[in-house]
C-alpha cells in the first residue's frame, strides 16, 4: 500500500506492535512502515524507540548500526536528544561500520532540527579524523550537507583524504572529489595564472612575477585522482574530469578527454549529461577534444536532444583545418528526417560560417542551395541564417539578395518572409531595381500576411520612401493606409508613427529630418555564439551547470586566491611520542645504533634494558606509524593488515601516555616485566610466549627488527659524499639514507644531509634550487639554513624516487654560490621494512612467482659463517626487515618499495659447504634484479 501511495496510517498501532517480532523480514517491513508514518503518528512511534535503544547496545556491530539507522530515520522531534546521544556514542564506536552509520545519521538529524548544528559539527570533525575508507565517504557527505563552508575542518584531513580516495567506495568518491575541488580552489594558486595573464600583462610586470610553483598538496590531489578516470562509474569519471578542468594546469587537462569520450558509449542519459559538460569544456579548451572529433558524429538513431548537443560540440570544435570535414558531415545531417535536428544543423552551419572567415562563402552557397529545398522549415531556417550572415558583409552578395527576393513568392513561413523583407529593405541600395517591385507585390498581398510580415512590409516601405521616393511614394502611401485600418493595434501604431516620421507635412516635427538616419543607420552584425559560452562559472558536472541556473544548495566554486594561504595548516600534528622520537633519531645514527654503541662501550649493564626499552618504544611507534602510512598506498589485500597496524600504532602511543585501554595494559605489563630482565635473549623468549596475542605479536616482530638493525655495525649506514670540501669552497656536504620514514610524505625516501662549514666565514641561505628530475620524481626540500664557521648541521629532506635508481639532480645554493649535485640511491634504500608473518610471507611469495621471481645460486663469503652475519649483510644492503622463520637454514626478509608499496621478498637458504641460494620476489622486476646483484655482492664478500 505504501508502494502504491495509499495512506495506510490507520494501521499504525497494529503494525508497530510487531517491531519486537523475531522474524527478520517482518521486522524490516515494520521498519519501512515506521519510518514512513512516524511523522504523522508521533506519540505512537515513541513506543518503539526503546527497542532501538536496546539495539544500540547490542554486541553485534551490524545490529548496532541498523538500530541507529532506523532510529535516526524516524522524524519525530521529541527524540532529538536521544538521537544526538546515539550519534555521539556511535561516532566513537569500535566498528567502522557503526561509525559510518553515524555519519549517515548526521544529515538526518540536521534536517530534523537545524539547531543541533554546532554539536553535529563537533561529531563531523571527529569523524573526519577517522582513518578508515568506509567512513570517509559518508562523513564528507554529512559535511557537505551540514556545514559545507567550514573548510577549516578539512585542512588537517586533506592529505589523508587524498591518499584514501582510491579505496573509498564509488559514491563516496564522487562526494569527496567535489568537495576537494572546492577546497583546492580556496587553498592553492591558479596553475594557469601566468598563461592567462600574459596576454594582458605588461612586460615589466612579467619580469617581476614569480614563476609558479605548484603546491605539493595540489599535486598530490591531481595525482591521486587520476587513476579514478578509469572507474566504471560514470559519476566518478565526471567528478575527476571536472576536478581536472577546474584545477589542473592547462597541459594536463587533456587526459580527461579520452575518459569522457568513453562515457559517450554509455546510456543515453549519461551521454546527455556528459555532452552538456563537453560542450562547455570545448569552448574553453578546444584542443582537448579535437582528436576525438569523429566520436561526436551523429547517428540517425540518437535521440534528438543528443543530436543537438553533439552538433553543439562539433560546432565548437570547428576550426580552419577541420571545417571542411565538419561541413561535409553537416550536409548529410541536413538530409535527415528529424526536422528539429535539421533546423539545428542549419544554425550550426551559420555559426561555423561566422566563426571561420574562410568558409563563409562556401557556407553561404550551400545555404542558398538549400533555399530550393522542398521542405519549408529547412528553407525558412536557412533564410534566417543567411540573413544573419549577409549582415556581416552585404556588399558582395547582392545576387543572393536578388535570389531571395525571387523566393518570396514561394516561401510561406512568416519568419522567413519577414527576414527577406528586412534584408531587402536594409540593403535596398544594393538592389535598387528589385526593391520597389517587391514592395509592389507585397502591397498587393498585405491584408493576407501575418503580423510579423506586415510590420516588415511597413518597414520596407518606409526605407524605400527615404531612399527612392520617386518610385515608391504612392506605394508607401497605399501600404500605410492599409495598415491604418489593420486589426492589430501594433501595426496601426507603427503605421501612424512612421507616417509622422517620413511624410513631410507642415506640422512635421524636428524628428522627420533625422528619419533617414533613424532608418538607415548601420546595424551591427549579430554575433552567433554558443549557448554554453558562460556556463563554466558553474562547477562542471553539477546540476546547476546542467540547468544553467542555481539549484538549491549549490556551493559556488570560489575563485582562485591571489596569494596562497598558509600551506602548513595541512600539516598533520604528529602524536607526541613520535615527535619525541624524531628528536632522538635525527642524529647521524639511528637511536638504536647509538644505544648499542653505548652498551658496547659501557660496563654498566644495569642501565641497558631500561634505555633500550625506551628507545624500543620510540622506535616501534614510529615504525608502526610508518607501516600504516605505507599501507595506505598499497594494494587491496594488504589493507586489512594496515588497519591492524594503525590500531597497534594507536595502542603503542597510548601505552606511552599510560592510557587505560586493554591492549596498552598488556604492553605496559610487558614493559614492567622486561625492565627486570637484563638479557635481551631472555626477553625475546618471553615475548615469543605471547605469540598468540596479536598486539604482542606485532610487538615481537618489531623487536626482531630492532634487534637486527641494532646489531648492524654503525658503519652500515654509509655516508655518501654530495659535495667535496675543496670543490665546495670549504663547504662539505655528505648524505646518508637514514632509513627513517619521511613523515611529511610517506612515499618519499628520507635523505639525511650533513653540512659542514670548513671556512672562516658564515654560510647563509643554504637551500635547494632548480631540481631536475625524471618525470614523476619529487623532492621535498628542507628549510633554508645557515652555517656558522666550522659548524656542522644535519637536515632531512625527502625524495620520491618513484622506485627507480635514477639520480635526483638539483642545485645546492648558498648566498654566494650554486653547486650542481646529484643523489643516486642504491636500490636497497628504495624500500622500507614490511612486517609479515611466516604464513603471510609464503602467501605473498606464492603470488609473486614466475616472472617476478629471481633465483640465484651463490657461494657465501668466508666471513658469512652464521645466520647473524647473513642477516647483518642483507639488512645493511637493503632496508628490509626480517621475517620470523622456523627453519634455521633459511633467512627471510620483507620490505616494500617506498613509492608504490610493492612487496619485496628476499629469501636466503644456506646449504652445506658454504653454498647458498638467494630468491628475490618482487613485482618490479628491475628492482628485483638490481637487488639480487647487490645482495649477491654483499654476501659473497
Amino acid at each position: 500500500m505504501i508502494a502504491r501511495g495509499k495512506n495506510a496510517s490507520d494501521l499504525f498501532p497494529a503494525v508497530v506492535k510487531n517491531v519486537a517480532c523475531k522474524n527478520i523480514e517482518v521486522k524490516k517491513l515494520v521498519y519501512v512502515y515506521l519510518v514512513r508514518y512516524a511523522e504523522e503518528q508521533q506519540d505512537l512511534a515513541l513506543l518503539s524507540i526503546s527497542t532501538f535503544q536496546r539495539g544500540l547496545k547490542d554486541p553485534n556491530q551490524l545490529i548496532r548500526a541498523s538500530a541507529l539507522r532506523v532510529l535516526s530515520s524516524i522524524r519525530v522531534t521529541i527524540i532529538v536528544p536521544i538521537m544526538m546521544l546515539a550519534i555521539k556514542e556511535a561516532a566513537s564506536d569500535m566498528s567502522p561500520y557503526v561509525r559510518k552509520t553515524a555519519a549517515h545519521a548526521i544529515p538526518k538529524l540536521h534536517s530534523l532540527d537545524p539547531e543541533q548544528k554546532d554539536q553535529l559539527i563537533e561529531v563531523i570533525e571527529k569523524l573526519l579524523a577517522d582513518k578508515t575508507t568506509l567512513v570517509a565517504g559518508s562523513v564528507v557527505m554529512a559535511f557537505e550537507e551540514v556545514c559545507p563552508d567550514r573548510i577549516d575542518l578539512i585542512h588537517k584531513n586533506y592529505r589523508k583524504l587524498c591518499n584514501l580516495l582510491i579505496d573509498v567506495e564509488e559514491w563516496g568518491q564522487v562526494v569527496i572529489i567535489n568537495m576537494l575541488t572546492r577546497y583546492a580552489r580556496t587553498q592553492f594558486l591558479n596553475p594557469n595564472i601566468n598563461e592567462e595573464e600574459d596576454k594582458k600583462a605588461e612586460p615589466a610586470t612579467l619580469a617581476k612575477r614569480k614563476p609558479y610553483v605548484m603546491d605539493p598538496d595540489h599535486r598530490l590531489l591531481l595525482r591521486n585522482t587520476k587513476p579514478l578516470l578509469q572507474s566504471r562509474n560514470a559519476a566518478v569519471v565526471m567528478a575527476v574530469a571536472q576536478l581536472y578542468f577546474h584545477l589542473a594546469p592547462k597541459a594536463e587537462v587533456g587526459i580527461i578527454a579520452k575518459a569522457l569520450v568513453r562515457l559517450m558509449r554509455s546510456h543515453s542519459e549519461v551521454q546527455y549529461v556528459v555532452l552538456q559538460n563537453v560542450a562547455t569544456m570545448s569552448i574553453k579548451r578546444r584542443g582537448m577534444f579535437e582528436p576525438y572529433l569523429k566520436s561526436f558524429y551523429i547517428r540517425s538513431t540518437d535521440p534528438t536532444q543528443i543530436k543537438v548537443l553533439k552538433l553543439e560540440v562539433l560546432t565548437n570544435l570547428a576550426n580552419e583545418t577541420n571545417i571542411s570535414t565538419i561541413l561535409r558531415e553537416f550536409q548529410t545531417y541536413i538530409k535527415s528526417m528529424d526536422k528539429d535536428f535539421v533546423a539545428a544543423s542549419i544554425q550550426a552551419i551559420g555559426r561555423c560560417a561566422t566563426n571561420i572567415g574562410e568558409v563563409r562563402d562556401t557556407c553561404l552557397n550551400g545555404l542558398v542551395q538549400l533555399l530550393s529545398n522542398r521542405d519549408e522549415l529547412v528553407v525558412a531556417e536557412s533564410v534566417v541564417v543567411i540573413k544573419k550572415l549577409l549582415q556581416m558583409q552585404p556588399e558582395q552578395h547582392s545576387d543572393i539578395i536578388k535570389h531571395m527576393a525571387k523566393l518570396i513568392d514561394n516561401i510561406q513561413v512568416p519568419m522567413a518572409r519577414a527576414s527577406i523583407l528586412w534584408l531587402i529593405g536594409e540593403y535596398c541600395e544594393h538592389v535598387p531595381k528589385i526593391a520597389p517591385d517587391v514592395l509592389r507585390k507585397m502591397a498587393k498581398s498585405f491584408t493576407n500576411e501575418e503580423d510579423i510580415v506586415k510590420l516588415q512590409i511597413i518597414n520596407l516601405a518606409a526605407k524605400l520612401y527615404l531612399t527612392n521616393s520617386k518610385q515608391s511614394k504612392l506605394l508607401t502611401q497605399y501600404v500605410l493606409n492599409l495598415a491604418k485600418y489593420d486589426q492589430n493595434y501594433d501595426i496601426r501604431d507603427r503605421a501612424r508613427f512612421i507616417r509622422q516620421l517620413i511624410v513631410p507635412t507642415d506640422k512635421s516635427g524636428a524628428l522627420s529630418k533625422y528619419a533617414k538616419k533613424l532608418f538607415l543607420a548601420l546595424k551591427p552584425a549579430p554575433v552567433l555564439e554558443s549557448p554554453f559560452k558562460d556556463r563554466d562559472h558553474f562547477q562542471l558536472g553539477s546540476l546547476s551547470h546542467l540547468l544553467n541556473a542555481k539549484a538549491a544548495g549549490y556551493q559556488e566554486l570560489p575563485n582562485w586566491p591571489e596569494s596562497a594561504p598558509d600551506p602548513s595548516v595541512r600539516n598533520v600534528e604528529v602524536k607526541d611520542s613520535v615527535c619525541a622520537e624524531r628528536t632522538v633519531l635525527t642524529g647521524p645514527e639511528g637511536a638504536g645504533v647509538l644505544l648499542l654503541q653505548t652498551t658496547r662501550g659501557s660496563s654498566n649493564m644495569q642501565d641497558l634494558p631500561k634505555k633500550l626499552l625506551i628507545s624500543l618504544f620510540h622506535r616501534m611507534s614510529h615504525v608502526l606509524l610508518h607501516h600504516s602510512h605505507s599501507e595506505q598506498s598499497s594494494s587491496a589485500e594488504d589493507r586489512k593488515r594496515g588497519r591492524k597496524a594503525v590500531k597497534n600504532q594507536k595502542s603503542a602511543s597510548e601505552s606511552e601516555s599510560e592510557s587505560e585501554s586493554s591492549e596498552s595494559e598488556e604492553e605496559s605489563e610487558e614493559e614492567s616485566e622486561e625492565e627486570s630482565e637484563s638479557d635481551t635473549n631472555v626477553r625475546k623468549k618471553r615475548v615469543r610466549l605471547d605469540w598468540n596475542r596479536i598486539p604482542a605479536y606485532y610487538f615481537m616482530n618489531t623487536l626482531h627488527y630492532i634487534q637486527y638493525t641494532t646489531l648492524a655495525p654503525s658503519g652500515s649506514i654509509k655516508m655518501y659524499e654530495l659535495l667535496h670540501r675543496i670543490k665546495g669552497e670549504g663547504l662539505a656536504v655528505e648524505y646518508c639514507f637514514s632509513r627513517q620514514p619521511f613523515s611529511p610524505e610517506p612515499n618519499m625516501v628520507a635523505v639525511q644531509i650533513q653540512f659542514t662549514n670548513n671556512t672562516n666565514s658564515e654560510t647563509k641561505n643554504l637551500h635547494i634550487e632548480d631540481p631536475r628530475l625524471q618525470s614523476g620524481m619529487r623532492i621535498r626540500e628542507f628549510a633554508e639554513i645557515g652555517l656558522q664557521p666550522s659548524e656542522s648541521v644535519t637536515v632531512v629532506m625527502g625524495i620520491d624516487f618513484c622506485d627507480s635508481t635514477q639520480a635526483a639532480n638539483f642545485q645546492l645554493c648558498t648566498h654566494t654560490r650554486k653547486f650542481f649535485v646529484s643523489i643516486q640511491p642504491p636500490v636497497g634504500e628504495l624500500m622500507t621494512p614490511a612486517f609479515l608473518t611466516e604464513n603471510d610471507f609464503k602467501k605473498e611469495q606464492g603470488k609473486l612467482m614466475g616472472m617476478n621471481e629471481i633465483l640465484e645460486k651463490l657461494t657465501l663469503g668466508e666471513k658469512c659463517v652464521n645466520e647473524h652475519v647473513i642477516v647483518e649483510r642483507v639488512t645493511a644492503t637493503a632496508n628490509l626487515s626480517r621475517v620470523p622463520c622456523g627453519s634455521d637454514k633459511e633467512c627471510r626478509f620483507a620490505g616494500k618499495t617506498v613509492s608504490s608499496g610493492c612487496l619485496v621478498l628476499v629469501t636466503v637458504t644456506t646449504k652445506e659447504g658454504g653454498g647458498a641460494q638467494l630468491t628475490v620476489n618482487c613485482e618490479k622486476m628491475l628492482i628485483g634484479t638490481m637487488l639480487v646483484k647487490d645482495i649477491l655482492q654483499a654476501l659473497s664478500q
Partner: protein
Amino acid sequence: MIHSLFLVNASGDIFLEKHWKSVVSRSVCDYFFEALERATEPENVPPVIPTPHHFLINVLRHRIYFVAVIQSEVPPLFVIEFLHRVVDTFQDYFGVCSEAAIKDNVVVVYELLEEMLDNGFPLATESNILKELIKPPTILRTVVNTITGSTNVGEQLPTGQLSVVPWRRTGVKYTNNEAYFDVVEEIDAIIDKSGSTITAEIQGVIDACVKLTGMPDLTLSFMNPRLLDDVSFHPCVRFKRWEAERILSFIPPDGNFRLLSYHVSSQNLVAIPVYVKHNISFREGSSQGRFELTLGPKQTMGKAVESVLVSSQLPRGVLNANLSPSQGTYTFDPVTKLLSWDVGKINPQKLPSLKGSVSLQTGASKPDENPTINIQFKIQQLAISGLKVNRLDMYGEKYKPFKGIKYMTKAGKFQVRT
C-alpha cells in the same frame, strides 16, 4: 540527495513509489508527464526536468521510467548512475526488469531499495552484499519458504560490507571450479554513400563468469595489451599492476561480472567485416522507387558472419514495399515505415540481396531524404581488434580451475548512409 523514486510504466501510470526522506506527493510527476507528452519519441524526454521546488531526473530502461526526485544540488550523473544500478540489480534479481516482475516481487523490491539508499545516499550497491542481505527469489526457495515459514531476508547480516574486498563473499564453495571469460567487441561505424568509412571504433568488454572456491587471486595477461587505448575496470582490478605491467590482477567477485571495458580508438585502422551495395532511388513524378541491397563479407579473417539483421527507416512518403530477398525474410511496417530484413548467415559464394520496388504515396513528391541502413551481425571466435588473451593464472588456492575464453565480434551502432 535522492528524495524519492517513482516508477512510471509506458502508459504513464505510477506503479511504485518509495520515499527516503519525508514524503513527496506524487503530483510532482505531473511535470514529468508534461515533458513526456511533448516528446515525440519515448527516448526524447529530457533526462533532467526542473520544477519549481524539485528536480526530476529520469532514466528509461525496459520501457519503464525511473523518476528520481531531487531537492538540492547533486551531480546529475550521480543520480543517473545510481538509477541504472538499481535497474541492473532488479535485472540481476528477477531476470527481467519489467513492470510485472516488479509488481510480483514488490516486497523484495522494497527491501532492496531500502538497503541501497539510506537517507538518499547510496549505502550498499554491490550485488554481492545485497544478495547476502536479501536472497534472490527462486521457485525452489518460494516453495521452501511457504512450507517452513522462513524468509528471503538473510538471517546473517552481511560481512561483505565490512571487508576490504566488498565485491566478494567469504566462504564460497563450488565442486566444479571454473572461470570463463568472454571478450566481446562491438564495432561502431558510420559508412558513407560511397562505401568509405567515416568513423569507426571498437568498444570491447570482457565479461567474466567466475565460479571458484575460496579467495582466488587471478592474473590475466594479454598478447598485445598496447591495443587497449582506454580502459575502465571493475573495482577489483589492481590499477597499479596494470599501469606498470599491463597485467590484470584481481580477486574476482563471485558469479557474473564485467571485468573491464575498453576502447580501441579510431586512430587505429578498424577492419570493417561487411560491405553493403545499395541502390535506392525514387523518380520524380512516378509513384515507384527502386530498392536494391546486397551484402557481402570483407576482412573477416576467414570467419563466418552470422545473425545478420538489416533495418532501415524509410522516408515518410513510402506507402509500401514490394521486395524479394534472396535469403532470409523481410518485414515492412507501413505505420512506422520500418523495414527490417533478417538475413541470417552470409554465404560468401552466394551473396544475399534484397531487390524490388517501393511504392510512394500518389501525388506526393519524391522524398529528398535518404534512409540510413543499420546493420547488426555477429562473428564468433574473432576479436576484430586482434586482442588476444595470453594466459590466466590463479594464485592463493590449491585446486586447478577450468578456464575458458570466448571471443566474439558484434556490430554496435553500425550505420550505412545512402
